[in-house]
């Protein structure tokens, strides 16, 4: 019961803040809403007993990445409106296609998860979380079953970093 209340309150907050992010006229304000949004998501993780994920969400997204966002938004002059594309309906069509794709994906996830949980109908399906803390388990999983995706992701980030440095370097 308490969990359901928490979930729906958070869901409303997250969606509301999400709407606020894209509707606020001032860019700095929308970044602030984005931070609040991330914090609410972190609380959602806590409700799901994924404390480690929650803390990492705050640390990496709210405390790190969005700070850099804010940095850019504050410094770049955003007063000039973006130049309109020749075809005014291009954006609308693109948006429609993208939101359709997301909707399909969400529907797919819902159908798939229903199909998976119903036959098993056991709470142990997802693997029980021991009291010792999920940090260790997460670590084990990352370095055993998911080692290759983990390493691939690291290399990807490294490539992005090198790329950024190459782009930002001044010709000397």
């Amino acid at each position, binding site marked *: 019961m308490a969990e359901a209340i928490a979930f729906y309150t958070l869901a409303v907050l997250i969606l509301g803040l999400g709407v606020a992010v894209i509707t606020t006229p001032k860019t700095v304000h929308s970044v602030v809403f984005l931070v609040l949004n991330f914090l609410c998501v972190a609380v959602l993780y806590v409700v799901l007993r994924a404390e480690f994920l929650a*803390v990492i969400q*705050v640390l990496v997204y709210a*405390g*790190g990445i969005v700070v850099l966002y804010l940095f850019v938004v*504050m410094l770049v002059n955003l007063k000039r409106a973006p130049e309109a594309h020749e075809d005014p309906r291009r954006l609308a069509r693109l948006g429609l296609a993208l939101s359709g794709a997301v909707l399909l994906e969400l529907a797919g996830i819902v159908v798939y998860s229903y199909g998976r949980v119903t036959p098993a109908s056991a709470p142990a399906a997802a693997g029980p979380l021991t009291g010792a*803390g999920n*940090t260790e388990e997460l670590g084990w999983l990352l370095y055993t079953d998911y080692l290759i995706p983990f390493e691939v992701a690291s290399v990807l980030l490294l490539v992005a970093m090198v790329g950024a440095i190459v782009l930002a370097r001044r010709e000397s």
Partner: protein
Amino acid sequence: MLDTIVIPVLKIAVLLNAVLVAVTFMVLLERKVIAWAQSRLGPMRVGPYGVLQAIADPIKLLVKEDIRPVRADPMLFTLAPILSLVPALVVFAVVPFGGDELFYVTDINVGLLFIISVTSIGVYGIILAGWASNSKYPLLASLRASAQLISYEIAVTMTLVSVILTAGTLSMVGIVEAQQQSGLWFGFVQPVAFVLVFIGGLAETNRAPFDLPEAEQELTGGFHTEYSGMRFALFFLAEYANIIVISAVVTILFWGGWLRPFPNVEALAFLDLIPGWIWFFAKMFVFLYIFIWIRATLPRYRYDQLMRLGWKVLIPVAIGNIVLTGVVKVLL
């Protein structure tokens, strides 16, 4: 009901008040210690030896006129000091002042990460204050602040990894218990990490010699130039609350928290007569004092030198320390 709601709420209420009172007296301590360092007397007028200055200051700030620049952003200008103070206070939820359950609000299994992540939110207060003031000096200061905080956060977090490796847990209580078991404070096991965390802590709390975001000689007060009265006081509270947090964290991670010296030596068992929380506060006081002492002694770094120190010295050393800790851990 009693266990899940009443007692925690009471604990939180007591803790919040204790922290805020501690902060006001920390300001007094700073004024006194710096005054002695500079062969002055410091505050002497309010109460005997000026001890009531700690109460007079907040009253003065509270009753001051609340000034908001006309061209400031109203929402963010108000929000910034709050965003700065709240994380500083929230962190205390996982700081154990003693081994007994009475002395901490909660002990979560990711305690240390919780502290790191919540303090990282505090930077928003500074950045937004600088931007919302719509003034040039605060803007420059908030740029300095955000670059500084992110850089040093990386260094500190990297360093803490080696402590976590040594302790084998992220829980604050667990880390102290690990020190009890090993019989050695981690300050002796991880001296490099201690130095790095303390330097990083100085930088993250914007303290001298890393107080660039509020360098009054260069930026006329930095990000809080346009703030006055209680809004300014909130920044002030946040800064000193953060100093207390860093001192507490250093005490817990490296100097055995509430443990007496040489926790496993039977011959010194008489030291247990002194309760753990007194040991804790005594150790913490030492670090608070060092914070002030440093401020009275050192000149200020320049922005580029500060970044160089962070990225080219602290972070490589921190990474080396992790590798070394890992190797030693595997070999033993």
